[in-house]
């Protein structure tokens, strides 16, 4: 690329994080550090049944024997796990009947983010389970949902009200032994979302959760469990932004999805955690384990993610395609800027016959960032006539950033086909000049080009999410392109 366009790109990509602010709500903390006592504290604070405390303790003991993985293409400063507060809850947590009774500070926070619950309620028909710090503050639309027998609530509530479902499915897709951060989450998770769609029910609205990290120096360990029973359908959206701060914050979440026979789950994420400042200070460590299992035949799980935030992203949403004819999809746009690092991709494990998976990954790197795609496609011996198509594209803005692709492919039978395509491109000075000559400034031009590049993924998002995603994509690379 010409040095001139480097300069332009450099200028416009140095945009400050727009969503950096801290809400001042009184918060109650667990003692700093991690011991069995911490875990007992969390469990008792939440009035958890015995089985859950046992699960946590087993996970903790396992975690103590494990080591933080080093295989990712990431440089991670040592994490002091004893310097983290593992539980925090807003003090005022009595049930509220209407939005007017919600803490005004909290409402203001949502308003700043442009996601006022009121608006959501009226316009989008989206039920919002807003998680702030660790305790769910407000759940809307639960009445409408309960009419269909749909359960959509905080994880804590599910533990108390639907312990059998939790007990049956929690850890069935991501066991606590899975990896270092999954073990940690299983030991200390504070809250999250739970969703159950009964047999034959098409969830009439998109379900959405906004996660926020809020209390200073508090790690966040969400846990989400989604179960779609036979023939059920749900579109689930997760989005998050975090306030600006100096210290690194650890975020190690688990999402588990179970799709029974003929069920379909569409899980969409817009991830915009605080990425750290221009010099690479601060920012969220986003170490997430997301996995779904297509348990029954003809089931389908689809992951779509737009990743623009976090200092470090380590995340490989995947599918275990157990049921015959089941389908797994992964659509991803990952943007890294300044000193951000991302090592993300997907894991598709074909176990059933005629199973299909698709991976479309678009990496966009700017500044001094590093962006890696890492994917595993495994087709087992019994998964005859299976197919995978993977496409991994990298777009570079400027010449100080890095893009890498690490595809791993294992095919254990002869009737299956795996296709992998990869490209690397740059925004050319020609393209920028062309746009500018039409009166579009460089900043908007980059927004246009990047959104065009990511179109294949963006069009997978639910409509109410797509606009926000496009905005985030542009904002994370420049000013404010719609």
């Amino acid at each position, binding site marked *: 690329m*010409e040095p*001139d366009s480097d300069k332009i790109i450099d200028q416009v990509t140095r945009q400050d994080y727009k969503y950096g602010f801290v809400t001042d709500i009184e918060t109650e903390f667990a003692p700093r550090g991690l011991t069995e006592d911490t875990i007992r504290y969390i469990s008792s604070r939440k009035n958890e049944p015995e089985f859950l405390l046992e699960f946590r303790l087993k996970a903790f003991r396992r975690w103590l024997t494990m080591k933080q993985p080093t295989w990712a293409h990431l440089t991670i400063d040592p994490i002091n796990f004893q310097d983290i507060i593992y539980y925090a809850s807003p003090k005022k947590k009595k049930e509220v009947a209407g939005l007017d009774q919600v803490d005004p500070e909290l409402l203001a926070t949502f308003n700043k983010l442009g996601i006022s619950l009121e608006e959501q309620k009226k316009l989008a028909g989206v039920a919002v389970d807003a998680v702030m710090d660790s305790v769910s503050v407000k759940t809307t639309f639960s009445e409408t949902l309960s009419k269909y027998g749909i359960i959509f609530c905080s994880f804590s509530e599910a533990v108390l009200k639907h312990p059998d479902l939790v007990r049956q499915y929690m850890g069935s897709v991501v066991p606590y032994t899975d990896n270092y951060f999954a073990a940690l989450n299983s030991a200390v998770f504070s809250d999250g979302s739970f969703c159950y769609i009964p047999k034959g029910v098409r969830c009439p609205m998109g379900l959405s959760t906004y996660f926020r990290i809020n209390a200073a120096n508090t790690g966040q360990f969400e846990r989400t469990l989604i179960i779609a029973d036979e023939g059920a359908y749900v579109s689930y959206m997760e989005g998050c932004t975090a306030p600006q701060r100096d210290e690194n914050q650890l975020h190690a979440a688990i999402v588990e999805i179970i799709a029974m026979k003929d069920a379909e789950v569409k899980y969409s994420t817009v991830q915009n955690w605080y990425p750290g400042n221009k010099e690479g200070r601060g920012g969220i460590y986003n170490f997430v384990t997301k996995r779904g299992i297509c348990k029954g035949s003809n089931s389908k799980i689809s992951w779509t993610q737009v990743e623009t935030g976090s200092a470090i992203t380590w995340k490989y949403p995947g599918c275990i395609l157990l049921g015959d004819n089941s389908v797994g999809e992964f659509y991803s746009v990952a943007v890294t800027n300044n000193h951000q690092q991302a090592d993300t991709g997907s894991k598709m494990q074909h176990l059933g016959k005629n199973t299909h998976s698709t991976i479309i990954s678009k990496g966009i790197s700017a500044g001094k960032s590093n962006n890696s795609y890492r994917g595993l496609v495994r087709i087992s011996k019994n998964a005859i006539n299976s197919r995978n198509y993977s496409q991994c594209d990298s777009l570079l803005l400027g010449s100080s950033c890095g893009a890498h692709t690490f595809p791993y492919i294992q095919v254990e039978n002869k009737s299956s086909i795996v296709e992998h395509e990869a490209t690397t491109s740059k925004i*050319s*000075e*020609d*393209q920028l*000049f*062309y*746009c*500018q*000559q*039409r*009166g*579009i*400034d*460089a900043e*908007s031009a980059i927004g*246009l*080009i990047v*959104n*065009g*590049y*990511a*179109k*294949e993924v963006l069009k997978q998002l639910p409509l109410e999410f797509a606009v926000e995603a496009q905005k985030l994509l542009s904002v994370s690379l420049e000013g404010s392109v719609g």
Partner: protein
Amino acid sequence: MLLRIKDLHASIHGKEILKGVNLEVNKGEVHAIMGPNGTGKSTLASVIAGREVFEVTAGEILYQGKNLQKLAVEERAREGIFLGFQYPVEIPGVSMTNFMRTAVNEIRQYKGLDALSGSDFMKMMEEKKKLVEITSNLTNRSVNEGFSGGEKKKNEIFQMAMLEPTLAILDETDSGLDIDALRIVANGVNKLRRPDNAFVVITHYQRLLDYIVPDFVHVLFEGKIVKSGGKELALELEDKGYDWIKNEQL
């Protein structure tokens, strides 16, 4: 006077390409610039548009009395300068509709006008498409992606019609066109000609000038305008070939 280029010198990566160009264009005029390949025609167009890889080392460009060198590429565009590209670039995934809507509204904002509503914009698209005889599906596609050579050139004229420039520079818009496409492109230009705008048509062949009749013809040779005349100069050039110019220069 709309455009006044005085003793313009420009270079790329230290290599001088334009070596003292003088040119004056008034509103209502059509100028043709001809000349052999590699002589600096596209460079001249790029320098007027403000492409940053080219360095202006001497001289000046005045546009509506303003010194263009003080304006960024997009500002020149918003001031009414349009460049029809010799090689239009592809922008994958960006629809023509989105692209043009962004451009039209940026220009409107610059002029202090409100953004066009979606329906007004679509109406405008339809009108302008008719003008350049563009089939309807063109605008749903990504900018120039998968367009044939002829479609790309028609698309440049379409964009010109959308943006209604005061000064349009068309860089070899005729190259590679069959006679039908050539006629469509020329018709587009002729329909857009007005007393308050001007065209600079860069062409290698005189053929286009049968359809777009210029008021002036200039010959650019090795970075300088070495000959200017009326439309008959184009015919003479066609007749005698560029060697004639070359020999005269020796």
